[in-house]
């Protein structure tokens, strides 16, 4: 091939490269911000539970088994959307489902659990986002996988459904289950 015609292909090559880059960019979701907390200890806290203002719990609840920490609120439509899947996980899977009831009010949150069922082993009550900030929460729902030593292993932004559970969360949960390591 003569030299001049192969040089003429350079702009085409650049165009294809740029198009591929932009196409890849289209598939990224800018609202999913990677968390710097992965592989770091869960933040320490002392919070009332949703059901009992007199009961204070700390990060010690994570010791010994894998937990899902699900940030939710009664005002959050996507939380309602993932609720059935959380119910299924709580029923079928050996994992502790911990709720972080976020920027919500007790009566409304409890009303939602009465109506749709309560998948949470423990529900932390964080009405003013004092604890949520330490988890880097910026929306609901968000779900963290915390291993049995209290280290955050994964963060899911947005609702969980069966596909997300199977492809994204279950592998992490199984990897960090104490009896399997």
């Amino acid at each position, binding site marked *: 091939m003569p030299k001049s015609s192969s040089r003429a292909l350079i702009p085409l090559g650049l165009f294809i490269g740029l198009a591929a880059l932009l196409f890849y960019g289209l598939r990224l979701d*800018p*609202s999913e*911000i*990677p*968390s*710097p*907390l992965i592989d770091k200890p869960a*933040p320490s806290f002392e919070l009332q539970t949703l059901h009992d203002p007199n009961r204070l719990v700390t990060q010690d609840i994570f010791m010994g088994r894998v937990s899902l920490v699900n940030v939710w609120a009664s005002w959050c439509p996507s939380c309602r959307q993932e609720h059935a899947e959380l119910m299924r996980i709580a029923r079928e899977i050996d994992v502790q489902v911990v709720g972080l009831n976020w*920027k919500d009010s007790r009566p409304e949150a409890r009303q939602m659990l009465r109506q749709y069922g309560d998948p949470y082993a423990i529900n932390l009550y964080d009405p*003013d*986002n004092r604890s*949520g*900030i*330490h*988890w*880097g*929460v*910026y*929306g609901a729902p968000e779900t963290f996988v915390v291993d049995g030593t209290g280290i955050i292993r994964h963060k899911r932004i947005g609702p969980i459904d069966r596909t997300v559970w199977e492809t994204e969360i279950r592998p992490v949960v199984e990897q960090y289950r104490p009896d399997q390591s």
Partner: protein
Amino acid sequence: MMLHPTHRQLLLGLFLIGALACGPVAAFTLEEFAFEDPAQTDSFRDLIGKLRCLVCQNESLAGSQAGVAQDLREEVYRMMQEGKTEDDIIAFLVARYGDFVLYEPPLKPSTYLLWLGPFLFIALGGYLLVRAIRRKQAEPEQELSADERARLKQLLAETDDRQD
């Protein structure tokens, strides 16, 4: 990019757009964050202008009406009241939300391309331009052949005729 007056206007614009985009949330005013020292008020406003609202990502904390932005403003305010420095507060937020919470990305190896890329492209363009000019200059003058010179003379004579 610091907050200059023109940026304030820009922020106001963003603020109005953001108010629409983020839906109705209780309105806030910066007046509720009072400091005894006016210089601290200035540094508070300067700092929240450098921090990004993670919900409305094109807004700084200074301009966002989102609920989470208000929570973060309150946290920044509390930390300043406790006497924390700007660097402390930024480190606190970056540890929890990542570099994304900074409106201006920090200069570090993973962002070198972002910060230096434009200069790289300017340098590349400049190099290609200079090379093209040099090559043009190096080309020998095109001499006209005897036939071409005769034809040129004829054409010039024709235009001269028409002008008369």
